[in-house]
Every structure is written in structure tokens, then in C-alpha cells.
């Protein structure tokens, strides 16, 4: 388990002290896929770097399995870093090494003998689905493939925790989806705790079980993903859930219920979803706001629907829409503004 207690990080700049993180408290259970989401500058990257002490907290503690890692010597900390590995937005592969040698890198650092390391690296190439790229150089691979190699490298030392720092931000939605699938698969098969730093709602919705929303260095909301996103309370959460300001355009109408439909790679059928629901279920929904895009034949994004204030209707609508694969539906309660 990872416990972050009263974590504060300050940076000294020419203009004085900047507080990147303020009194952050989080508990992350073993085996979770935990999302930390926030706009850029919210302090996400600093937070994740405090978990492996790439950044030293100004105040507060980070416990990994009960061990206060700020108190470790440099040598002990290096050992911990083999248990808490990291993947990055820019992949950060060694460009002058082959993929196989890149995966061997952390094993070399740990002093494993060459043949053994090579065998392990070959296994990992299989795990990430690139068994034929052993002797290719990173520059010969696509972004998605490079991230797969980076994931294999991060898994080489059999870590307990995988930190993902905007790991999919440089990738297109389709590749993002594939990489997230891989991460989920790794989490399930190997039981590795995953911490995902992102500014993309869709990433959190797709694979995280719990989420913390970070705004100007503080955690403003924390909890189970579906709960946090279906009834966002803080301003920061609302901005994330309704990025295009759907909430700002619309007045609260009495007697109207709202549901949010999230597409995370649903196959966009030729039939219009809302019209079909009206015909088959006799439910008339108004589209209050939508931000969707299609990539290939798949739809990504979300939609805010207005429904009549009737429990039965809302329930049927949610049932109808949830029956479509890769579509997530939740009722939005409270004042969405």
C-alpha cells in the first residue's frame, strides 16, 4: 500500500516560493489502478515524482508498504526504485540501444548477468506483443511501439508499483486505447499496482478504479471513478467532466434529469443512437452537450442528455444505453454548473 501523508512540495524560484503541492493525503491500495487527474500545472508530475523520490518533498511523508521512503539512504532508495518503476510521456528510451538492450537496462543496473537478463527481456517482449522487435532501434518504431518497449523495461525488475506519467498523452486515441488495455492486462495478470497521471478524462474512465482530482497542488476530490465523475462537486472536477463548458451554456431546467454517456471506443453504428432510443424505447432525450469524435469506426468522447423527470424513464434509458459495449452511462446529479 502507498500512503501519502500531508505532502507539501515547494520550489524556490526567482519570484519567491511556489507551492507545487499542498498538504496532499492519499491512500492507494495494492492492486488498484489509481488515477490522478488534473489540468497542466496542477502538480500531478511533481506528485508522482515524490512517490519515488525523484523529487524530495518539502514536508510530509510517503510510505510504501509501511516504509517511510524519504528516510532511506541513496542505496536503499535505488533498491526501492526497482520495485516502483515508471513510464513516461516521452517514452525515454535509450536511442543508441536496441529494444532488447533497453529492456535489459534496469537488469544491468541491478547487476543481473547478461544471459539471464536477455532471457528475461525476450519474455517481456512477448508480454508487450513485440517479439520481433528485439534487434530494432527505438527510432525505427512508432510511438505506441516505443511505449510498449518502455512498459517492458519498467516490468523487467518485477516491480510492485508502476507509475505512468502522462504515458498516453503523446499517442493517438486508438494507440492510447491499446496501451491502456496492455496496462490493464498487466495489472490483472501480475497484480501490479498502477498509478496513472493524466489530464485526459477518457483515460481515467477507461481503466481506473479510483481517482484523485488535483487542482493547484491540492486534492479536491477523491473516490471511486464512477461516483466522482457522475456527481462532480468541485469546480475542477466539473471542468474536467464537462470540458467544453456544456454546463456553462445550459441553465438548470426544473423537471429535467441528466445523464452522461461516455464513449470509450464503442463501435459507432450507422444507426443514430438517440433516434433509435426514441423509436425503440419511446424515450425522448435532448442533447444538452456533446464532445465526441470518431477514429476509424470507433467513437470516443461524451454526451450530456436531458431526460424527463421520471425514475422509470431514466432507468430504462440508462439500461438501454449501457447495453451497448464500451459505452458508460451515469446519471449526473446536483448542480452541474
Amino acid at each position, binding site marked *: 500500500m502507498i500512503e501519502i501523508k500531508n505532502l507539501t512540495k515547494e520550489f524556490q524560484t526567482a519570484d519567491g516560493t511556489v507551492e507545487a503541492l499542498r498538504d496532499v493525503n492519499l491512500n492507494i491500495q495494492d492492486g488498484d489502478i489509481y488515477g490522478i487527474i488534473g489540468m497542466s500545472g496542477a502538480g500531478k508530475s511533481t506528485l508522482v515524482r515524490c512517490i519515488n523520490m*525523484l523529487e524530495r518533498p518539502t514536508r510530509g511523508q510517503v510510505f510504501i508498504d509501511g516504509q517511510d521512503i524519504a528516510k532511506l539512504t541513496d542505496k536503499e532508495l535505488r533498491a526501492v526504485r526497482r520495485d516502483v518503476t515508471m513510464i513516461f510521456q516521452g517514452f525515454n528510451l535509450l536511442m543508441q540501444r536496441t529494444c532488447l538492450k533497453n529492456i535489459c537496462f534496469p537488469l544491468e543496473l541491478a547487476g543481473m548477468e547478461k544471459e539471464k537478463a536477455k532471457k528475461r527481456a525476450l519474455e517481456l517482449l512477448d508480454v508487450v506483443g513485440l517479439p520481433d522487435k528485439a534487434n530494432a532501434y527505438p527510432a525505427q518504431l512508432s510511438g505506441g511501439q516505443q511505449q510498449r518497449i518502455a512498459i517492458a523495461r519498467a516490468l523487467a525488475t518485477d516491480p510492485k508499483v508502476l507509475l505512468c506519467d502522462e504515458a498516453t498523452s503523446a499517442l493517438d486515441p486508438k494507440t492510447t486505447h491499446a496501451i491502456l488495455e496492455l496496462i490493464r492486462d498487466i495489472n490483472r495478470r501480475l497484480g501490479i499496482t498502477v498509478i496513472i497521471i493524466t489530464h485526459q478524462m477518457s483515460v481515467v474512465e477507461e481503466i481506473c478504479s479510483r481517482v484523485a482530482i488535483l487542482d493547484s497542488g491540492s486534492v479536491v476530490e477523491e473516490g471511486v471513478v464512477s461516483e466522482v465523475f457522475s456527481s462532480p462537486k468541485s469546480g475542477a472536477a466539473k471542468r474536467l467532466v464537462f470540458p467544453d463548458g456544456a454546463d456553462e451554456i445550459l441553465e438548470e431546467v426544473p423537471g429535467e434529469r441528466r445523464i452522461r454517456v461516455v464513449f470509450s471506443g464503442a463501435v459507432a453504428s450507422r444507426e443514430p443512437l438517440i433516434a433509435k432510443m426514441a423509436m425503440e424505447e419511446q424515450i425522448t432525450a435532448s442533447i444538452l452537450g456533446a464532445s465526441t469524435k470518431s477514429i476509424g469506426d470507433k467513437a470516443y468522447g461524451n454526451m450530456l442528455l436531458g431526460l424527463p423527470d421520471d425514475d422509470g424513464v431514466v432507468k430504462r434509458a440508462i439500461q438501454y444505453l449501457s447495453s451497448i459495449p464500451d459505452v458508460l452511462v451515469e446519471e449526473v446529479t446536483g448542480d452541474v454548473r
Partner: protein
Amino acid sequence: MFDKLFSPETIEETLRILQTEIPLACWETVYVTILATAFAVIIGLPLGVLLVVGEKDGVRPLPKGVMHVLNVIINLLRSVPFLILMIMVFPLTRLIVGTAVGTVASIVPLVIAAFPFVARLVEGSLREVNPNIIEMAQSMGASPFQIIMKVLIPESVPSLISNFTIAITTILGYSAMSGIIGGGGLGKIAINYGYYRYKYLVMLIAVVLLIVLVQIFQSVGTRLSVKSDKRLKGK
């Protein structure tokens, strides 16, 4: 002064000098240059590494005073003109080689003049390494020494090769000056025949040969650098 440059007697005399002295001179220039570069790299590479890793935000910060002294020494040595440096290091040369004149002796001032230059070139190469990659290595538990040996140096090999090529061509130029203190090579031929005895054709040919050598070093270096760079696709 160039009126008798191509008279039959001049050409005949030049050919004789070429046959007897040029092969040895070429060889002397090449081996002095290569040896001096090798020593300059042996001293300059670690210093260049220290300049990068020892900084305040470096991989292994060193005390401010140490960095200051290092920078001052490098800057001082780089600001002394080579001609004067050659004379200034006479005592050191005598200590190491036993004599201050001659071809072998000329290697000492060449190394003294070149290693600070090499250190700065290495510094430049290592600074090109993406800091995110260094952070990655730290996140995987790499020690400062492992970062130097497995990340900083290997990742900058193409840049290092092209910078060492700059170093070798510069040292080649310096080695020509060492003809003044009795160092052998093409520089000596140019000075002795061209400057002291007005045999300009010999000087001209020596200069052309120096240019050819620079060209050879440069194109071999460039090719090696490109070939070693795995960032270039489709290789």
C-alpha cells in the same frame, strides 16, 4: 616573390625534397596528431564528464569550489596562445620526455593545449543528452556512475565522435606550429623551406598536404559519427 615558382630548376629541386623528406613528414604529422588527440581525450573526457555531472543540478553535484577551480583552469589554458604555451611548458616537457625539442617533445604542449578544448567539447556533447532519459535512469535506480557509463556517454557517442573530429583537425593545425620548436612534420617543412629558405613551392605543397590530411580526418570522422547514430532510421 613568386616569379621563379615554376622554373625548371625549382621544380627539379622541389621534387628532390619531396621524395626525400615528405613521406617522413607526413608520417610524423599523422602520428603526432593522433597521439596528441588520444592523450587529450584521455584527460579531457573525464574532465568534460565532471563539468556536466558536477553541476548544482547534475547527476553527482560536486562542491562549488571544485567546479570553480576546474572551470578556471580550463579557461586559463584555453586563453594562452599555442605558440606561447609551447614555450611555457618547456620545463614540463623536459620532465616528461627528457628534452624540450623534437617531434616527440612536441606532443606534450599539444596535449596541454588540446585537453581543455576536448573537455569543453565533451561537455557540449553530454549536455545534448535528453534530461528526461537521465531522469528515467534515476527512476530505475541507476547510480551516478552507472548514469555516466550507461547513459551519458553511450547516448552521446555520435556527437562525441564528431567533436573528436573537430579536435583532431584543430590539433593537426597546432602540430604544424610545433615546427618552430623543432617538432617534425609538414609544419616543419613549410617553415624551414618556405619561411627560412624562400622555397615557396615546397611550402605550398606542404600546405596542400595538410589540407588533404584535414579532409581525410574530417570525412572519416563524419562517416563514423553518422554510422554510429542509431537515431537515424532505415539503417
